[in-house]
């Protein structure tokens, strides 16, 4: 499959989860640009939890997640002067966080599980349709199961389903092909359901 280059603006539009604070944020962001420590703390309070969970899903380790979160906030406060309201602040911040987290994981040189190119990654697994009783899985159980996935699975799965990236974008930021992204995703999903069935 051909990987076409995506514009970063398209990427941004996909990642707008935290938009509700956008307007009230403007004043705080302005103060952050002046280096106001109180305003920086306000921003931290608003976003730390959500961003920490992003870090945790990508790194899969609480200590690493905290290091990454710290680093990402420092980068964000340093670069905040370049933030021009072109996207929701949350989305802008999340991009920094995801990048920092991926850089952290890359240091580990994680491997994507080997792919058999014949594998039917287009398979949306209809024969494994989730039974209604399985819908009662609490998000918490699923979250814990995601944490048990190997690096490659967990990252692709989280980026696609929770951080709102599409396979094209995932392929780009991870430097893999779109087909690898899709197959990793599908295999991650199967593995996840296996873990949950136990």
């Amino acid at each position: 499959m051909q990987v076409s280059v995506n514009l970063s603006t398209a990427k941004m539009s996909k990642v707008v989860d935290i938009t509700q604070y956008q307007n009230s944020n403007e004043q705080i962001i302005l103060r952050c640009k002046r280096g106001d420590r109180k305003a920086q703390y306000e921003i931290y309070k608003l976003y730390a939890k959500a961003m920490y969970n992003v870090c945790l899903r990508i790194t899969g380790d609480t200590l690493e997640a905290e290091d990454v979160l710290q680093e990402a906030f420092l980068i964000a406060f340093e670069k905040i002067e370049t933030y021009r309201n072109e996207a929701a602040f949350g989305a802008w911040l999340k991009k920094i966080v995801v990048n920092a987290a991926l850089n952290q994981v890359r240091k580990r040189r994680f491997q994507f599980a080997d792919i058999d190119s014949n594998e039917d990654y287009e398979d949306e697994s209809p024969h494994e349709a989730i039974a209604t009783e399985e819908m009662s899985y609490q998000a918490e159980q699923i979250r814990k199961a995601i944490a048990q996935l190997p690096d490659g699975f967990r990252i692709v799965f989280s980026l696609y389903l929770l951080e709102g990236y599409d396979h094209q974008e995932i392929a780009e930021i991870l430097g893999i092909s779109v087909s690898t992204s899709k197959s990793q995703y599908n295999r991650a999903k199967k593995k996840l359901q296996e873990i949950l069935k136990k």
Partner: protein
Amino acid sequence: MDKFEKYIRSHKEAFDSEEPNDLLWEKIAAKLDEKQPAQKQVRLVPITKLWQMAAVFTALIVCMIGLQIYYNSQNKQKTIAKIENAGNISLESIYPELAEAEQFYFMQIEQKRQELKKYNLAGTKTDSETEEYLSELDKAYKDLKKELNTNSNELVISEMVRNLQIRIDLLNQQLEVLKQIEKIKEEQKGKKL
């Protein structure tokens, strides 16, 4: 997209259940301090300290206003003529209050030095260090005095007073340490007996 995926997508917030360590902000703030130490920062000061600071500040302001009024009432021509004499200008003619303070502090400093001499420190490292420090302060003081002749302002005056206070603090600390050592020696002697 199957039901499983839909379920996760529609319950995204529930997956953000973990909390970062409470101390993380402290770490970030510390790093930010390193990067931009000169930023205006709000530091909490205990209320008693605040009163002390306010009192000191008020006293200083009153002092400055007094000096200013006095200065203005002086015959400026006369003053300038004296300044032009340069070099060893007497403070008394321009800032009698400062001159008085200077005299008081010098007396104190001399007294402490005499006290210090009783400890027979001459030739020791402690002694030479103290002397070196004091002479540096003295040099700085003389520079400040020169500065005062050409550019009289509150900052210079308060720096001069601070310079004198530092000397007294330094000597006091030395004496305190020496007294402690003597006390310990006494105690040990007592034990041996």
